[in-house]
């Protein structure tokens, strides 16, 4: 490899591109497959030297708001999240298209088709379209780098935020990436119109008109984008539109020598002229995209007849799950010879709690405390502790969206369920649980909230948790009676004691919070190893 070629994950390529493009502020809430973007920026010596702010935020909404603030003062900024994070941040995100960007602003969404570590497989390109801003969808790690770098320029050219969309395989695959000469950061320069960011109706209407007025220019930009490529082929019986990573699967099948014309799309709004040109040349137009049939649906809006279009909507490609080279081969009618089937003796090996995990002891205590009640009264949330749904625990009955446990338990108790329990992780609690707890306090809902405090955001790899050392003061501050804030230590030899505490609070006709507190075994091990290493180095 040439010296300036780095072996990077797609996530890391994006982070390095942000550094090289002169970013000043990076904000994120962890979420697979996006977390390595901010982790890279936090660990990067170069970023530190350049004084780049790289911070975890309480949730995705505060992250996007932080980016809007950084952009307001004229600095370049990047914010990263997993796909469902954009639901949380949607209010800020959609409105940021109206305020516009002063310094370059990129919102990265890492979508997870096949739900490798997610609760749905939503395609966030729809959010980009909804917000009326350009979407960049790199097909590989080099493009992830190049398009992030370019995204800042595009953002500053049109004064709007850009949505950079990747999917799991781009995010979590490593390849050699060439990087560019670094650009300096922007100086502070406030918007020339100091009313630009005030979205009062009268002003917001102007901003909306302005956003609509640049749409043709954005389409033009896509028509001429170096990332949207028309690759001709002699055989016009089929034309292929392939977006993002789908392009790789197509080229993998043709080994670079495609017989059919291909339009690769990596920049949106969709390049209408390029599509029409292809459409008019071919007998069948096959649309291959990772995620929902986004382009395929759009085609109906401007092709007067779309009878030639085939893809996910026509059943040529599956609606569910991520793509792979074999699925694409089948869609293109190419030979597809798979290896032998998985032998029938093979069983699944689902993820499980780490040995020694504090959640194990918490669930054992909770199950025992609840054993005299009928099942089905524990609302829970998203994190390692969701594994409490699996045998032998089968201790929880819901996992919907971050923070839902508390609001759901409250409403269930409103409806008469006694006792009603919420089980939520410390990071999930500060992400979106605090507001639900406030609702419960205001109406003195008889619920028992168990905040599992392992001092980290465990599920996503052990990032720091905003809740750290703050849970008691947060709960007290929200108005929970301090007598009903109970800290327990989830350990085997405290089991009886813990069961007793939970039973007492289940019986209480008001809001109680129980906080089982013991560090995550993974972060504990990591800390010990680092300490050990440090000692060795100091010798």
């Amino acid at each position, binding site marked *: 490899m040439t010296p300036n070629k780095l*072996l990077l994950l797609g996530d890391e390529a994006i982070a390095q591109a942000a550094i090289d493009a002169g970013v000043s502020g990076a904000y994120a809430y962890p979420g697979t497959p996006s977390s390595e973007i901010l982790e890279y920026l936090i660990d990067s010596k170069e970023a530190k030297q350049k004084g780049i702010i790289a911070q975890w935020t309480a949730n995705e909404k505060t992250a996007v708001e932080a980016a809007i603030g950084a952009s307001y003062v004229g600095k370049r900024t990047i914010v990263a999240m997993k796909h469902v994070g954009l639901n949380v941040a949607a209010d800020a995100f959609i409105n940021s298209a109206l305020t516009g960007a002063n310094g370059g602003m990129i919102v990265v969404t890492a979508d997870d088709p096949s739900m490798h570590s997610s609760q749905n497989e939503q395609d966030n390109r729809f959010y980009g379209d909804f917000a009326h801003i350009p979407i960049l969808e790199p097909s590989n790690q080099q493009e992830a780098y190049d398009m992030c770098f370019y995204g800042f320029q595009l953002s500053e050219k049109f004064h709007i935020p850009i949505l950079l969309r990747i999917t799991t395989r781009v995010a979590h*695959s*490593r390849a050699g990436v060439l990087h560019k000469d670094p650009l300096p950061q922007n100086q502070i320069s406030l918007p020339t119109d100091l009313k630009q960011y005030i979205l009062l109706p009268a002003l917001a209407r102007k901003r909306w008109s302005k956003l609509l007025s640049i749409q043709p220019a954005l389409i033009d930009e896509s028509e001429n984008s170096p990332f949207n490529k028309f690759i001709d082929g002699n055989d016009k019986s089929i034309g292929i539109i392939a977006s993002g990573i789908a392009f790789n699967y197509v080229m993998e099948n043709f080994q670079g020598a495609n017989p059919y014309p291909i339009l690769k799309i990596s920049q949106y709004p969709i390049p209408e002229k390029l599509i029409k040109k292809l459409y008019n040349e071919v007998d069948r137009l096959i649309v291959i995209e990772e995620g929902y049939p986004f382009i395929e649906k759009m085609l109906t809006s401007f092709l007067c007849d779309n009878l030639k279009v085939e893809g996910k909507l026509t059943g040529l490609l599956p609606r569910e799950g991520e793509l792979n080279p074999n699925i694409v081969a089948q869609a293109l009618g190419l030979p597809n010879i798979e290896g032998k089937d*998985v032998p029938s003796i093979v*069983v699944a090996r689902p993820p499980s709690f780490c040995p020694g995990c504090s959640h194990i002891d918490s669930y054992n205590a909770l199950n025992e405390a609840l054993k005299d009640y009928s099942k089905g009264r524990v609302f829970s949330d998203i994190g390692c502790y969701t*594994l409490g749904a699996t045998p032998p625990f089968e201790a929880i009955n819901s996992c919907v969206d971050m923070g839902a446990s508390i609001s759901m338990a409250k409403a269930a108790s409103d409806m008469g369920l006694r006792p009603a329990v919420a089980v939520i992780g410390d990071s999930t609690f500060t992400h979106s649980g605090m507001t639900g707890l406030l609702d419960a306090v205001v109406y003195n809902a008889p619920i028992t909230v168990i905040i599992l405090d392992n001092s980290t955001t465990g599920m996503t790899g052990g990032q720091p948790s905003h809740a750290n050392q703050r849970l008691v003061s947060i709960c007290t501050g929200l108005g929970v009676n301090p007598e009903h804030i109970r800290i327990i230590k989830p350990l085997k030899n405290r089991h009886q004691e813990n069961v007793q505490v939970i039973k007492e609070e289940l019986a209480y006709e008001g809001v109680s919070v129980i906080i089982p507190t013991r560090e995550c075994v993974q972060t504990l091990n990591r800390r010990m190893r680092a300490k050990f290493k440090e000692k060795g180095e100091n010798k």
Partner: protein
Amino acid sequence: MKKDIILAGVGGQGILSIAATIGLAAIKKNLNIKQAEVHGMSQRGGEVVSHLRISDSQIFSDLITKGQADMILSLEPLETLRYLPYLHESGWIISNSEPYTNIPNYPDLELVYNEIRKYKNHVLINADEIAKKLNAPLSANMVLIGAAAHYLGFEPQEIEDAIREQFSKKGEDIVNVNIQAFREGLAFAKEYIKA
């Protein structure tokens, strides 16, 4: 030259360190590589797989095409079987024989071995046992790379150089024990194929 390798194992076993070693050897030879990893949910004692692709020409897909893998290199015998649809008919299975039994319904081990033995091109090796004999239980991964070395498209020396570089920060002792583990695996495979 093209090598598509499925690396398989259980979360926490360290398939990424295998990918790192082979990847480093590839980079030192100026080859293109792509390596799809798994993060998140699947790491907690669950099944993990990484697609490692090495080529002297451009690599498009991050994922290996089913039926095209040159090798399944696996730290766990049951996990080996999970990825058989990826293996090309002339591909190799290099599999650890030591089971990782963190599930209650782990199948009869002999049946698992029999499925692997159905493939002519296979090496079934107890990498953990060999590593333990070297007093280096953490080097089972290197034993396994050794067992695979004949079919990876590298000279053994090139892989040793990569191991040396990978562990150089940890001191000469660690480097040596890992190279020793690699050589044991290499020698074992040579004998195994003959038998």
